[in-house]
């Protein structure tokens, strides 16, 4: 499963589709996951706070393709933070649409007090629950973690989702996870750190 799809399913409640994270955190998490897909596909590199396009070949996924094309066109923007903000603006919609195209989620409108809100509900309730269980087994060391898994777990940790995934905070699990993040290839590790900083700064400036 693609990184952002997986993150999307874990970050939303499997029953009512409500976000388990604050708006900013879910946006930065999904944007980070979309950048992560491009890193895993070896199209871009993240180096500290900046990124670099290393391969112009369009990825097979249309969303990743669009993201890469925008990045190639906007040569003046190479700050990871800028892309987290930019991709984050439309991330929920974009990834939700991508999941809807393959029939994994459905779009619904929920009436709120004064406005209506778009939610994405899993067509099979077992799917998101299964992704959460899988991530839990990875973090708790039941299954070996591949690079993409560690990236997903790292994004979950950076956005504050691990509290939900793990039920109770397991210090040994968290330590193992942090160890695993630290030994990720630097582009993925730096990406996770950038997501974590972006969310921290949003807390400090009281936005989102």
């Amino acid at each position, binding site marked *: 499963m693609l990184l952002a799809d997986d993150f999307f399913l874990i970050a939303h409640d499997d029953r009512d589709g409500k976000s388990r994270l*604050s708006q900013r955190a879910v946006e930065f998490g999904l944007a980070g996951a979309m950048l992560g897909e491009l890193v895993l596909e070896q199209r871009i590199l993240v180096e500290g706070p900046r990124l670099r396009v290393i391969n112009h070949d369009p990825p097979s996924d249309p969303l990743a393709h669009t993201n890469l094309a*925008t990045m190639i066109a906007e040569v003046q923007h190479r700050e990871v933070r800028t892309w987290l903000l930019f991709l984050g603006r439309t991330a929920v919609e974009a990834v939700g649409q991508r999941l809807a195209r393959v029939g994994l989620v459905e779009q619904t409108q929920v009436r709120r007090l004064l406005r209506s809100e778009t939610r994405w509900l899993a067509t099979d309730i077992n799917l998101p629950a299964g992704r959460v269980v899988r991530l839990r087994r990875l973090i708790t060391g039941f299954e070996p973690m591949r690079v993409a898994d560690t990236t997903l777990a790292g994004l979950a940790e950076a956005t504050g989702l691990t509290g939900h995934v793990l039920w109770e905070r397991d210090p040994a699990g968290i330590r193992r996870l942090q160890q695993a993040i630290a030994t990720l290839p630097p582009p993925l590790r730096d990406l996770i750190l950038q997501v974590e900083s972006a969310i921290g700064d949003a807390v400090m400036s009281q936005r989102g």
Partner: protein
Amino acid sequence: MSATSPTRPSVVSQALARDRLGVPSVIMFALTAAAPLMVVGALVSTGWGVVGTTGFPLAFLIIAVILALFSFGYVAMSRHITNAGAFYSYIAQGLGKPLGVAGAMVALVAYNLLQVGLYGAFGAFLQQFLSDKAKVDVDWWVLALVLWLFVAVLGLLRVDVNSKVLMVLLGAELVVVTIFDVIFFSHPAGGSVSFEPWTWGALKDSAGPAFAVAVTAFVGFEAAPVFSEEARSKNRTVATATFLGLAVMLLSYALTSWGASVSMGVDQTVDLAQKSLDSGGPFFPTLVEKGGAWAGDVGSVLLITSIAAAALSYHNTTARYAFALGRERVLPSFFGRTRARSGAPASGSLFQTIIALVVIVLFAVEGWNPLVNLFFWLGTAGGIGVLLLVTATSLSVIGYFIRDARGEGAWARLIAPILATIALGYVMWQVFDNFGLLLGIQPGQKSDAVWAFPAAYGVAAVIGLVWAFILRGINRQDYDAIGLGAQANTARIESAESVEVG
């Protein structure tokens, strides 16, 4: 057509620009720190009696000028550093990390004191209001606990009082205060407006304590640089918001405190205030006498709501401070985590909530006075902590730019900070030399409170210094990340890598 053509509009820049904060939003935010009714109706009204002077208008003017002088360097430095929302970051990046941690500890104490003090004022003023209007007698601490619960819950849900709500409250407050000013100045005692509150003669014997009150009143002026990253024009927006905030505060505080004492008689003010210390001072009684009952009611309601809003806002500030320090691992790292659903800095919020509860319960059990002891003593003690931080930050600005001017002019990076530091040093000397007067303790009278507050800051600073040196010994990466706030994580990795390489 070349893809790098500079005239091509950038989709990314345009999209992000729409999300950025314009001058009005940042100004709105900076202005919400102004609380004229709370400052004059509660702080100064108590201060007349405790400190025994009417010279507050001049004190406000002097402190505003000094803070404006300080702000040139402060705003200039905020453009260059990370975590520009917290004083200790300036200190860590300008004077070194050990002093930065010391500053962080002082800040934690100061903002907690400022927050907790508000519960006293809220409880006492609401108690009076309820017994006047509804003939219900409720103890002040019961009401304080209601506000405490409200703040605790909203803090965890991460409800920041919406800046538009704050703006409406402040707008209402400014309009009402202007009307009060008209009432006061059109009913001067003895038929003529006295300029005595503006003279050094009125202030000089109590200059230290009056300065402390004035600094407390201006707390919040430092908030705008939080947005330096999010503002549309980094250079202009933050500076404009900071200076305008100071100007509005000065104007409303000085005029109203002057008008009120003119109306009750400048020579009567201190006497009246000392007789009504337990009921919040003579501000509201005078208002009712000269303007009618409606003026007192409107003023009281706005006072109580603005205290509640301020309590929540200081609570969130304290929680965010603890969050940043948790991210830096200066405090345990769980402080650096957020509550998933709300994104609130949960541990910091709970920590502040517990401190507030302990203090409220202590004051209730001991039967100490909610206005004089809780609100005025703790509040101004918090203000003094901010004064310490401002002074240290002013020194940091000089230290920071002395190594590298970074394109800033001599006035902002050197001259103004030097003048500000000298002036702040003088203010600090006045405050600490006359600390007993601030608490209303006559010379010769003994009280532990006189040394307890300064000692608390001393202890906090020493703990911070020692902790910084311990951190340097046990974990160099954590030490290197001090002062970087939410970006500490990346600095730690860089520092770890430089060790591996070197």
